[in-house]
C-alpha cells in the first residue's frame, strides 16, 4: 500500500468508559460514531464506507442511517479494527469510497444487547477444546505462557512487571479504570485465575466503544484536527484453536502482520517513538516485542522489567494503561488505535514528547489473528 495516502481525520471513544448501564451495545456504537463524526467536523451523510466487527455492518449502518458504497464486516476478534483500517485504506486508495467510519463497541460488563458467544459442539473448538474445560479467555489465552517462559527464560516477576508498568501509565490517564499503583508483590499475590496468571495479569471487563474516520490524505488537511497518516499495515490469521498454534514460543500471526507493516512503512525499529501492543493478558507485550522484531524473545521480559517501557523509558508502551488498566470491553484493539491516534495528534493524557511514529499491534482471539497499523504525524 502507498505510504501516507490515507489519514485518520476523526477519532473518538464513547462519551463514558467503564460501567455504562444506561446504554445498549448498539447505542454504544452510535455514541462512539457520533463523537468521531463530530471530531472530524462531518455529517452522517458524508460517510460512504462502514466497517465493524461482531455487530454486522448492516446493523450499524441502518441504526446510524448511513448508505454505504463500501462495507467491511471482518470479524477476527479484538484486532478486527486494525484489519478494518488496512482494508479501508486500500478501498479509499482504490476509489471504492471516500470517507470510512469504523466502529467498535461492547457492553462487555453490563451485557445489554450483547450478542451471545457460543461454541457449537460440532465445531472443531467444540470437539477438541471445549470438552477439556476451557471456559472463556482466561482459561485459554495463558495456555502458551509456561512454554514461552521455559523456552526463553522468562520469569514470573518479569511478567508481573508488565502489569506494574502499565499501571504507571494508567495513573496518568483520567479515563483509565484502574489507577492506583501496584507492585510486583501485589501482582503475584493477587487472586489466582488460571495459573500462572493472577487477576492483575488479566484484562479488565468494561463497557465502551470507539470509532475512527478515514479519508484520503489529499483531503485530510481540510479537517479540524491534525491528520494522522497511515504509514504501514499488516494482517494475518493462524488458528481458532490455541492448542493448534505452530508453536507457543511465538505467534505466527504476529510474525506475519508485524513485519509486513514494518516493510510497508519502510521504517526501522529505532524510528518507533510510541508502541501499543494489545494486552488482553500480561504475556502479550512480550510476544509482541519479540515477534515484531524489537528484540529477541529472550530479552523481552528483562527489557520490560528494567523499565524501558515505563513513563520516561526509551520505548513507551501501552501508554493508556492497556487492557490491563485502561479498559477492555472484549475487543480492545479499537482503544489501542485511539491511543496511537491521540499520541500522534499530540493530545494524549500521557503524551510522549516528540513521538513521530506509532506502531499499534493487535491480537484477535487467542493468538488467532493479528493486525498491525503504523501511524505517523508527518507526511
Amino acid at each position, binding site marked *: 500500500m502507498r505510504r501516507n495516502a490515507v489519514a485518520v481525520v476523526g477519532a473518538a471513544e464513547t462519551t463514558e468508559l467503564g460501567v455504562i448501564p444506561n446504554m445498549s451495545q448498539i447505542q454504544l456504537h452510535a455514541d462512539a460514531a457520533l463523537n468521531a463524526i463530530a471530531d472530524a467536523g462531518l455529517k452522517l451523510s458524508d460517510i460512504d464506507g462502514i466497517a465493524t466487527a461482531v455487530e454486522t455492518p448492516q446493523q450499524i449502518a441502518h441504526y446510524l442511517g448511513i448508505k454505504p458504497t463500501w462495507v467491511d464486516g471482518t470479524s477476527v476478534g479484538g484486532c478486527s479494527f486494525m484489519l478494518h483500517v488496512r482494508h479501508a485504506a486500500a478501498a479509499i486508495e482504490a476509489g471504492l469510497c471516500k470517507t470510512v467510519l469504523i466502529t467498535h463497541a461492547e457492553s462487555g460488563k453490563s451485557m445489554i444487547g450483547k450478542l451471545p458467544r457460543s*461454541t*457449537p*459442539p*460440532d465445531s*472443531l473448538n*467444540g*470437539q*477438541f*477444546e*471445549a*470438552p*477439556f*474445560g*476451557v*471456559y*472463556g479467555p*482466561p*482459561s*485459554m489465552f*495463558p*495456555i*502458551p*505462557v*509456561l*512454554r514461552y517462559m*521455559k523456552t526463553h527464560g522468562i520469569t514470573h516477576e518479569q511478567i508481573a512487571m508488565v502489569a506494574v508498568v502499565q499501571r504507571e501509565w494508567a495513573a496518568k490517564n483520567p479515563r483509565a479504570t484502574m489507577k492506583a499503583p501496584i507492585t510486583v508483590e501485589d501482582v503475584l499475590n493477587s*487472586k*489466582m*485465575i*488460571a*495459573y*500462572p*496468571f493472577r487477576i492483575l495479569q488479566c484484562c479488565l471487563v468494561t463497557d465502551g466503544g470507539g470509532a475512527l474516520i478515514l479519508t484520503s490524505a489529499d483531503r485530510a488537511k481540510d479537517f479540524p484536527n491534525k491528520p494522522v497518516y497511515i504509514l504501514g499495515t499488516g494482517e494475518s490469521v493462524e488458528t481458532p*484453536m*490455541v*492448542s*493448534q498454534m505452530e508453536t*507457543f514460543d511465538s505467534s505466527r500471526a504476529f510474525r506475519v502482520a508485524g513485519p509486513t507493516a514494518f516493510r510497508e512503512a519502510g521504517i526501522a525499529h529505532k524510528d518507533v517513538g510510541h508502541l501499543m501492543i494489545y494486552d488482553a493478558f500480561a504475556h502479550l507485550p512480550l510476544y509482541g516485542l519479540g515477534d515484531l522484531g524489537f528484540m529477541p524473545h529472550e530479552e523481552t521480559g528483562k527489557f520490560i522489567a528494567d523499565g524501558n517501557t515505563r513513563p520516561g523509558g526509551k520505548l513507551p508502551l501501552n501508554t493508556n494503561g492497556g487492557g490491563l488498566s485502561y479498559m477492555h470491553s472484549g475487543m480492545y484493539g479499537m482503544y489501542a488505535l485511539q491511543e496511537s491516534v491521540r499520541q500522534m495528534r499530540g493530545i494524549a493524557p500521557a503524551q510522549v514528547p516528540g513521538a513521530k511514529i506509532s506502531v499499534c499491534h493487535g491480537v484477535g482471539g487467542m493468538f488467532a489473528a493479528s493486525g498491525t497499523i503504523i501511524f505517523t504525524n508527518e507526511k
Partner: protein
Amino acid sequence: MAEPARARPKPTPETQHFWDGTAAGELRLQRCDACANVYFPPRPFCPSCGSRKVSIFKASGKGTLYSYVINHRPAAPGFTPPYAIAVVELEEGPRMMSNIVDCPQTPEALELDMKLEVAFEKLDDKITLPLFRPAKG
C-alpha cells in the same frame, strides 16, 4: 453427580473416525500418503500439501506435556477447580488439548516435557475422551 456435565463433543462426518477410535480404545491420527505429514485435528485432506489421499492410523498414545494452565475461575461445567487444561505433544508430532489425570493439579507435579500416555475416559455410549496421565516407568 448432580453437577452439570462437561461439554460433550458432537462428531461430524470428517471427525467420526477419531471418536470411533477413542470409543474403541485407540487414539487415531491421519497421515498424508503423498507427503507423510501427520496432522490433527481430523480432516479428509492434508493441510500441508492439499492431497486428498490420506490414511488413518493408530497412534502410540505417548506424548509429553507441552504447556498448560491450572484453571481456578471461572470453572467450566463439569469441572471442579483447580484443574489443569493441558496441551500434549504427541510422539507422532501433532499437539492436542487434554486433561492430565492421576496427577496432582499443581505446578510442582505438572512439569513441562514430562512423559504422558493416553487414558480414555468414557462420557457415554458414543463419546470417549482422550485424556492423559503420567507415563508409567
